Structure formats: structure tokens, C-alpha cells
């Protein structure tokens, strides 16, 4: 029964490399499908609504409380060395660069990535994907490409909205709880904000949106063996998307802001 540790490590490494290869092949096939017609516009619009519009409440809620707690926490820290005036800037930079894209993406991964994997996985195990093929419709074009495009396009919009709501949350706490002057707070927010702060966050959002949709579609498409397989695909989609979001977040940050 006992397997030597080195064997186990080897197996895990091989499985990991195999997964990378398999995901890359999947993504390449999707990109190839995306470049040639037909494009199913209706499906793209539907997915954009699903990813963007219906995620607004949960992302908005995340953003406003993140902005609020940022203001509060930085106040308790910064007050120790009388640097309260930096709070508006800290809030807006943290939100646009980091917390807006990462938290919004994690929430969307839980909401949308799981739903995608479950839907496509169910279609796989009930032969609906095979049925698409027999009706001369490429499942990559009909199912995968619209989701990838919607993820790529919608998440930046969602994150921009989250940025604004988050700054508003910080503003509310700053003005009504910490007794900032409202005009001064806004001026401090905008004066030190750089284009790159927001832009890097939106680039992150686009990458994260693509990754969420890719993981949802990939795990759904590859699911096997009935309800259990679909359940596993759903979990795998959320976990892998979250892990990828955090990993890519670091490398995109490094690419933008490395010294």
C-alpha cells in the first residue's frame, strides 16, 4: 500500500504538467475557433449579461465594504504617525491596482466559473455536446468562445464599476466617520491617482475574466461520469480559477510596476 514519497512526487509533477498541456491545447483550439466565423452574437450577449450584469450586486457589495474597511484600517494605522491625509490615496491605489480586480475576479470565479462548469459539464454527460456536433455546430464556437469573449470584455467593466463603488465606500467612512472634509477627500483621491493604477487593474481584470471562463469551460468540457463528475468539475473550475487569479496577479503586477 505504501508508495514511496518520491514516486508520489513524480506522479504529481507529471499530472500537473499534463494538466498544463491539456489546458493549453484547449485554449489554442478555442482561439482557433474564435478567429473564424460563425460567431454566435446572441450567445456572447447572453454570457455578458450572465457574467457582468448579474454579478453586479455581489461585486458591488464586495467593493463597497472593501473600500470602507480600507479607509478604516489605514486610519487606525496612519494616525499613529499623523499621516491621515494619505488615506484617500491609499484607498484608491489599493482598490484600482489590487483589491478591485482580485476580489471582483474571485467573487465572479465563485459565481460564474462554477455555473459554467456545471452547465457545460451537464451538457457533456447528457450528450448535448455530441448533439451540437451532429447538428453541424462546433461546440467550441457555440459554447466556449462566447464565454471566453464575455469574460475578457465584461470583467474590466465590472472592475471599473467596483473601483468607483469602492472609492465611494472609502469616501463614506472618511467623511462621515473619520471627519474628513468631503472636497479634500475627493481631491486627495484624484490628485495622486495615475492612469497606470487604473489601467493595470483593468488589464488584470481582462486576464482574470479570460481565466475564469477558460477554467469553467475546460473543466465542464472534460467532465466525465454523471453527477459526480460534474460536481468535481465545478469544484475544480473554482479552485483552479482562484489559484490562477492569484498567481497571474503577481506576475502582471511585476510586469507593470517592477523597478
Amino acid at each position, binding site marked *: 500500500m505504501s508508495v514511496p514519497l518520491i514516486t508520489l512526487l513524480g506522479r504529481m509533477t507529471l499530472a500537473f504538467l499534463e494538466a498544463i498541456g491539456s489546458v493549453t491545447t484547449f485554449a489554442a483550439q478555442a482561439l482557433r475557433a474564435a478567429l473564424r466565423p460563425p460567431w454566435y452574437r446572441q450567445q456572447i450577449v447572453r454570457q455578458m449579461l450572465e457574467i457582468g450584469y448579474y454579478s453586479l450586486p455581489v461585486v458591488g457589495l464586495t467593493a463597497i465594504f472593501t473600500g470602507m474597511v480600507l479607509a478604516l484600517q489605514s486610519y487606525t494605522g496612519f494616525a499613529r504617525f499623523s499621516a491621515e491625509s494619505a488615506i484617500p490615496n491609499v484607498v484608491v491605489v489599493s482598490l484600482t491596482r489590487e483589491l478591485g480586480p482580485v476580489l471582483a475576479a474571485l467573487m465572479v470565479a465563485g459565481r460564474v466559473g462554477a455555473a459554467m462548469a456545471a452547465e457545460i459539464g451537464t451538457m457533456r454527460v447528457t450528450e448535448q455536446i455530441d448533439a451540437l456536433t451532429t447538428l*453541424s455546430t462546433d461546440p467550441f464556437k457555440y459554447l466556449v468562445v462566447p464565454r471566453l469573449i464575455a469574460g475578457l470584455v465584461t470583467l474590466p467593466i465590472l472592475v471599473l464599476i467596483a473601483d468607483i463603488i469602492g472609492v465611494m465606500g472609502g469616501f463614506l467612512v472618511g467623511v462621515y466617520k473619520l471627519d474628513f472634509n468631503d472636497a479634500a477627500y475627493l481631491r486627495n483621491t484624484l490628485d495622486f491617482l495615475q492612469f497606470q493604477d487604473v489601467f493595470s487593474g483593468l488589464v488584470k481584470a481582462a486576464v482574470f475574466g479570460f481565466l475564469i471562463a477558460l477554467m469553467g469551460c475546460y473543466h465542464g468540457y472534460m467532465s466525465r461520469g454523471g453527477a459526480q463528475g460534474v460536481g468535481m468539475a465545478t469544484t475544480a473550475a473554482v479552485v483552479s480559477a482562484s489559484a490562477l487569479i492569484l498567481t497571474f496577479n503577481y506576475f502582471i503586477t511585476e510586469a507593470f510596476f517592477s523597478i
Partner: protein
Amino acid sequence: MASPKISLRGVTKAFGAKQVLRGIDLDVASGESMVVIGGSGTGKSVLLKCILGLIRPDSGSIKVDGEETIGLSDRDRARVMRKFGMLFQGGALFDSLRVWENVAFGPIQSDGMAATAAREVAIAKLGAVGLGPEIGELFPAELSGGMQKRVALARAIAREPEIIFFDEPTTGLDPIMADVINDLIVKSVSDLGATAVSITHDMASARKIGHRITMIHEGRLIWQGPVADIDRSGNPHVDQFIHGRAQGPIRMQVKKL
């Protein structure tokens, strides 16, 4: 015999160490209804999916109208697929779409038909399987199993295919509904003048919808002949199967506890 509509030579397929198809040779003539019988897990579904290009066989040749289909480009594959209609075992209806949208899916998405015209086609095809236009507005989940099968049949014939595949069309239905489906299959195949390949282990269904029967066992075709000859095949495997005996040359692989 004129050149066959579908012609298979030496088709093999293995999943890992499990050899599912061990060299299938099969000819189906134009306008013929071929029924493939065999136990569960003998490779019937894999055989159909190989012909449809959903599974790529390891070796062998599959010709449709004399054209080799293995290794076709995506575009050519789509052109050949246009000849096929398929009734899936579980129906495989798109549950996010209404019934009429399911039936009209091929005409709209693949043939570019306008939605209003395709809706007319869908309602006509639903009528052909004995379903009224009001059913078209429902979602598949709201239908009984027998009705879902009929909708799936309507979808399979909506583009008037030259070849129709039926994957266990009567499985999971009561005997009366099974016979209704059998009648509909016979009628729609003869109306279209289509070539049909069905896989089933329901002998009543096989006798009713088939012109010829072939039996698959352990990945090989072990017998083939007209429906009328099935009772005097002289093949002990076939005899055991059509009479449903537990004892005989076919051993169910049941693991000893």
C-alpha cells in the same frame, strides 16, 4: 449491390488497455435500415460515435458515399455531418432552449434559416411525431420521457438527413410508448427515404425497425442477416441474446466477490 451508403473496414478503437472495437467490417446499403444488437458495453455506442466522427478510431476506414471520413478537415467534416441525423439515447435536448428551438436548431444555426421559417419547419416536424404546436413553447424538462424522445426524433429529422442513427431509441420507455416510437421511426425513415442505423438491445424494436440485423460481441460483428433469419441464425451467441438467457456462450463479466 450498389456501392454502400456507409462502409466500414477494419475499424478498431481502444480506450487505454480496453480494446472496445476489434476490427469492424460493415456495409449499409442506401435506404436500408440496419440494426446493431449486442449487450451493454460491447461497443455499440462507440461504433456509432466513430461513424459520426465524435470518436476517432485507432485504425480502419469509414466511408460515407464512398468518401473516406477519417482525417477530414473540420470544414469537410461539417459537410459530411450535414447528411446525418442522430437520435441520442437520453434525447440530449438542449435544456436551455424551448422545444421548437431545439427542433429548429439545425436549420437556424447551421443552415442559416430565418427564425420564423424555421419555426414553421419545427412545428411541422413536431406534427410529424404527433406533437401539437403548443408543445413547442415548453422547455424539455417539462416533458415526459416519451415526449422528449419524440422531440429528439423531430430534431433528428428536421434537416431531412440522408442517414439517421438511433441510439437505443426505446430504452427507458414503457412498451406501448416504445412501440409508438418504433412506428414513428419506421415512418420517418421511409418518408425521408433515409438510410438508418440503430443500436438496441430491445428485440421487439429491432424486429420492427430493422431490415437487416447484425450482432456485435466483444468488439466484433459475429452475425449478420435479414430480420427474418434472426430466429434461425444457427449462431449460439445470437440465440442466447434474442431469447435473453443468462446461460450460454456469452458470459456476463461479473466480478467474484
